[in-house]
C-alpha cells in the first residue's frame, strides 16, 4: 500500500483503557501497525532535581512516591545504596522484613496486572476476581505498614516497623487462601482455550530481541532468559532463600501471563520461608546523617523488573546526584518493537503486557520515533475519507444529510 493509505491515530493522553496519561501515535497500514511513537512525559515532575535539595531521609519518602505500585522497591534500592555508601550493614531481621514486604508487594502488583490484562481483553470476571483477592494482600500491607499503598517500611539502616507473631500468622493465613486462588488462575490460564487463543502469538519478542532492546522482568523471562536480579546480583537476604527463577518460552503475552502467575506462587513460597526463618533481633541500626563521598549502583528486582539506582554523595547531608532507572523505562523499547506489525486491536493488551508504569518512567522522559509521520487535522481527515470513497465510486459529499431535528 502506498504512503497515502496510511492512517495516523493518536491515542491518549486521557486514555480509555489505561489509568495513566500516555500518548501513543499509531500509524496504520490497513489494520496493521507500521509505526508507533510513544509520547510520555505527562508525569514528568522533576524528581531528580528535587532530590538534590533534600536530605537522605526526606528522599526516601519522595522516592516512595515515584510509583504507588512498586513503592517499596524504589526505597529498598535507594536505602541499600546509601547503606553501602555509609558502610553500614543492616540487622538480619530487617533484611528479612524487607524481603517479606517486597514479596507481598509483588503479589499485589502481579494480581493488579492480572486484573488489568483481563480487562484489556474483555474478561471482566477475571478482573474482578483478581482485584478481590488483591484486597486481602492490601489488608496485610496495611497491617504491616499502616497504609495500603505507600507503606513507608524502609529507612536508612533498616526498617521502621517490625512484623510480630500475630501478624506473621495473619500473613500465613493470607498466603494459604491466596495460593488456592492463584492455583485456580494457573489452571484457568493454562487450560481455558479462549484465554490462550486471545493471548498466544500476541506481542512476540524473541530472546535475542529482548536482550537487544534491554527488556527486563517478566517480559525478558517470558522470552526464555533467566534474568532476575534476585538471583543474578542477590541483595538483602535473597542469597539464602531457595527459589526458582520462573521462565517461559512462549515469548508472547501468553508467556508473560504464565510467568506472572507462577511468580505469584513462588513469591508465596518465599514469604513462607522468610516467616519461618526470620531471626530475632533489632530492626534498625544507627545511620549517619552525612553520608561519606562516593558513588554506588544499587539494583533490585521490582515486580516489573530490574530497578537501578545510581547515587552519588559528596559528603554532605544531601546527595550530589540520584538517578533512577525504573523497570518500565527499560521495557518501552521492547514494547515498541512488539507493536510493529501487529493489529491495532491487539495494541491495548500488548501495551498492558509489559505492565507499564508511566509515573516510574517519567521522572525522565521518553519519546521514540522510527520515521517522521504527519498528523492530520480534522478537515484534512474528512477530505481524505471523501477522496477514499470517491475512488471506490461513492460520492459521500453529494449525500444530503437531513437537518437535525430539534426536540426541545
Amino acid at each position, binding site marked *: 500500500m502506498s504512503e497515502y493509505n496510511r492512517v495516523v491515530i493518536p491515542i491518549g493522553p486521557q486514555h480509555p483503557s489505561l489509568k495513566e496519561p500516555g500518548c501513543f501515535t499509531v500509524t496504520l497500514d490497513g489494520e496493521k501497525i507500521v509505526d508507533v511513537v510513544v509520547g510520555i512525559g505527562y508525569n514528568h515532575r522533576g524528581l531528580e532535581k528535587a532530590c538534590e535539595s533534600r536530605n537522605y531521609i526526606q528522599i526516601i519518602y519522595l522516592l516512595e512516591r515515584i510509583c504507588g505500585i512498586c513503592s517499596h522497591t524504589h526505597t529498598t534500592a535507594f536505602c541499600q545504596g546509601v547503606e553501602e555508601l555509609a558502610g553500614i550493614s543492616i540487622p538480619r531481621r530487617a533484611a528479612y522484613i524487607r524481603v517479606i514486604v517486597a514479596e507481598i508487594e509483588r503479589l499485589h502488583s502481579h494480581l493488579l496486572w492480572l486484573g488489568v490484562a483481563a480487562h484489556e481483553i474483555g474478561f471482566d470476571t477475571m478482573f474482578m476476581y483478581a482485584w478481590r483477592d488483591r484486597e486481602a494482600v492490601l489488608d496485610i500491607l496495611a497491617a504491616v505498614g499502616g497504609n495500603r499503598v505507600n507503606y513507608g517500611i524502609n529507612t536508612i539502616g533498616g526498617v521502621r516497623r517490625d512484623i510480630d507473631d500475630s501478624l506473621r500468622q495473619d500473613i500465613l493465613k493470607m498466603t494459604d487462601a491466596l495460593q488456592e486462588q492463584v492455583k485456580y488462575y494457573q489452571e484457568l490460564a493454562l487450560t481455558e482455550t479462549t484465554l490462550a487463543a486471545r493471548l498466544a502469538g500476541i506481542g512476540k519478542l524473541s530472546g535475542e530481541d529482548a536482550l537487544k532492546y534491554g527488556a527486563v522482568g517478566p517480559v525478558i523471562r517470558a522470552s526464555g532468559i533467566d*534474568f532476575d536480579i534476585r538471583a543474578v546480583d542477590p541483595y538483602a537476604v535473597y542469597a539464602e532463600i531457595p527459589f526458582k527463577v520462573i521462565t517461559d518460552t512462549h515469548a508472547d503475552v501468553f508467556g508473560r501471563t504464565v510467568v506472572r502467575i507462577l511468580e505469584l506462587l513462588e513469591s508465596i513460597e518465599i514469604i513462607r520461608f522468610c516467616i519461618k526463618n526470620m531471626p530475632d533481633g533489632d530492626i534498625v541500626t544507627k545511620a549517619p546523617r552525612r553520608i561519606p563521598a562516593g558513588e554506588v549502583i544499587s539494583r533490585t528486582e521490582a515486580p516489573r523488573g530490574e530497578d537501578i539506582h545510581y547515587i552519588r554523595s559528596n559528603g554532605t547531608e544531601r546527595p550530589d546526584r540520584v538517578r533512577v532507572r525504573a523497570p518500565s523505562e527499560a521495557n518501552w523499547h521492547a514494547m515498541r518493537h512488539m507493536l510493529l506489525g501487529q493489529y491495532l486491536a491487539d495494541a491495548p493488551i500488548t501495551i498492558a503486557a509489559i505492565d507499564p508504569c508511566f509515573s516510574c518512567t517519567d521522572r525522565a522522559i521518553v519519546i521514540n520515533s522510527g520515521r517522521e509521520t504527519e498528523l492530520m487535522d480534522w478537515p484534512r481527515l474528512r477530505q481524505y475519507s471523501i477522496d477514499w470513497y470517491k475512488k471506490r465510486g461513492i460520492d459521500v459529499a453529494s449525500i444530503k444529510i437531513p437537518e437535525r431535528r430539534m426536540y426541545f
Partner: protein
Amino acid sequence: MQTEEAIIHKLAEKFSILKDKLYVQRSKRIISEFLTREEFEQVLPYLRDKMGFYRASHVVGTDEGEDLGFIYLLTNDEGIILALKEKAPKSDPKISSLSGDYPSLEFHERELVSLFGAEVEGLPAGPSYPLPDGWPEGNYPLRKEWNPEYFDQNTMTYNPPIDDKEKEGGKK
C-alpha cells in the same frame, strides 16, 4: 565465568589508556574513571564485541562542574555492571549516540539532550521529549547552576537574579 579482576586485567592489557582507570567497587561492579570521547570510542566496541558487554542498562548524566559526565552502565550475561564514564566540556558537550548498537539507550540519550544540554551526534530525529511543550530553550534543569526556584511555572520562564545572570551569561 570471568571474575571482575580478570576483566580489568584483560582490558588494561589491551588498552594502555585504561591502566589504573578501572577498579572493582564490589562484586559485580566495575567502575571506570572519566575518559575522553576518543578514549571512550576506542574502548567501547571491544567491550561490546569481545568482552560480552552487549547490553546497556542505562546512561546517567552528571554535572562535573566545567564538564558534563556520562556514565554508561553496561551489563554482561553474568550480571556484572561496568560503569564506563565519558566526559565532555560544557562549552562543547558533544558525544556520539550509541543507540545504533544499544537500542535500549535511545530514550536515555534524548533525556541527556533535554536535561543536560548534551549534543548527541547520530541520535535519530524524534519529537519533543522529556520536558513539556513550550519549555524555554537553553534551560537544562539538571545542570547544577540551574536553580528551580528561579523558574516560573506559569510563564515558563527562567528568571535568575541579576548577579546570577551575569555569571551565567557565557553559559547560556
